[in-house]
């Protein structure tokens, strides 16, 4: 934790910490909306969006057809006009269907227009392997996204970081690829009460290495 010192703590799963981050940002900014497959009526394929449709309504929490390229592109277009979409990919394996939208549209629009457009979008969802899902559902994508200029890539290792980083990602003015670990949604950790964010791009040294410096828990 870099921005909190003496906050009261309580134990949350990563899933619920992410849910709190989404709820707080939906509450704070009417331009934020959540869009993706099963995020609304079904309460989220991994229950990250549990209760959000009941609380914020179908205008802010939007179920989509299974058409990742289409709804990612809708999010990017909406972001070009100043909205702050959070696009949930049911898993990042399926985001490959939207990779053209992410790489050619989200990442490059600012450059090609010499800064006329920002694309303040978050594309988030589970990444990496899970249990016995074979090859199409088990890919870890962070290194791919990190190689495309224009994208900000964020991941985390614990519930407190998950919440603070997602809130920062939603407020960030460039497209953020926010990678959650499918295996670790149920991991519990201590999370501060109240409002906090964690700045992107600042390493949190969880345990100094004896040989080379390493920054665990966050990438950009």
């Amino acid at each position: 934790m870099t921005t909190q010192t003496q906050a009261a703590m309580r134990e949350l799963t990563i899933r619920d910490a992410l849910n709190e981050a989404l709820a707080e940002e939906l509450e704070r900014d009417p331009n934020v909306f959540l869009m993706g497959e099963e995020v609304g009526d079904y309460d989220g394929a991994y229950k990250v969006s549990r209760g959000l449709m009941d609380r914020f309504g179908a205008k802010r929490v939007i179920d989509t057809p299974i058409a990742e390229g289409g709804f990612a592109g809708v999010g990017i277009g909406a972001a070009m006009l100043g909205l702050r979409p959070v696009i949930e990919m049911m898993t990042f394996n399926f985001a490959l269907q939207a990779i053209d939208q992410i790489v050619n549209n989200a990442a490059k629009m600012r450059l090609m227009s010499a800064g006329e457009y920002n694309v303040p979008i978050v594309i988030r969802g589970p990444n990496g392997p899970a249990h016995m899902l074979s090859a199409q559902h088990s890919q870890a994508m962070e290194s791919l996204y990190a190689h495309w200029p224009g994208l900000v890539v964020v991941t985390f290792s614990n519930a407190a970081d998950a919440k603070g980083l997602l809130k920062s990602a939603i407020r960030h003015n460039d497209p953020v690829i926010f990678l959650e670990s499918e295996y670790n949604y149920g991991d519990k950790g201590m999370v501060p009460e109240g409002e906090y964010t964690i700045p992107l791009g600042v390493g949190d040294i969880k345990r100094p290495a004896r040989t080379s410096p390493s920054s665990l828990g966050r990438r950009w």
Partner: protein
Amino acid sequence: MTSAVETPMKNSHDDAGSRAAGSDGGRLALPRLKKMLREMLLIRRVEERSAQLYQQRKIAGFLHLYIGQEAIAVGANEALRPTDHIITTYRDHAFALVRGISAAAVLGEMMGREIGCAKGRGGSMHMFNKAQNFHGGHGIIGAHCPLGAGFAFASKYQGKKDVTVCLLGDGAVPNGAFHEACNLAGVWSLPIVFIIENNEYAMGTPLHKTNAVLDMTLRAQGYNMKGILVEDGSDTQAVFDAISDAAATARDFKPVLMEIRTNRFRGHSMSDPAKYRTKEQLEELKKSKDPISRLFTRLLEEGAMDDDDFKAMDEEVKAEVDAAAAEAEASPQPDPSTVGDYVYSDPVIPGKGRR
């Protein structure tokens, strides 16, 4: 109903889901038509100049000209409100001009100069004027259609009554991104008009090799959209009337799929000699389907202009384009040290946080 076009396309049109639009709408006032004629002339002369500059190697990259299709850009802009959004393909110079980008900024962008509307970062295919709701200028076929749906989504989300017009070519119709965008527009009742500018060639591949259904408005039914066909896209009045109808429909949250049949008189790009049609075919098209000479003929017949007026207008436009080209050429190329300036709005430096 506009006049029938000689075309190899089979028209299996069913009036249930769509209709042909034409000159049954209100007639445009003559001063407005003269203004539109001048806009088309400006587009034509800018395109001709850009072809010259390309041949002189002052423009590099790809260059796709709009010559022959001018009535669509001008008719669309005239039918829309300034607050309505326009997004199109890489064949974008005409839309840049009608949406307020100066000829110097258009030519300068193609030449990679500072004066360019994107300071030379976008080039011919990526022109933008966000202040006047022209959102590009996109180079991946079909991939801009979901962005267009996103603009329409944003308008509806924000409670605005703005319409988005998303243009694409017949070559983009088989692409999946277009269909996903159409389906989302139908599911969410988005205020959007997709306009297919059907010039019958996907680069150099003819329509019947690329599209299973040649009457593109038939696809509207599959997405709960209204279909509107304009058989003669060189008829400025018909284009204006049909897009006016379409925009009114979309403003009531009923998305529209339009097909406007048109002709590009040049190849797909400067590197395309267009061997897929004969010289005679092209000459015939230029005689019968040139939107500029057709509109001038109408103004002539209605007594609003004569040959001398047209010549004077053309000379004025040519002088404007000469001056714009000179201004663009005099503008410097961007400083190489600025190459990374627009990659991030908020750069995050590893280990150091924000710059």
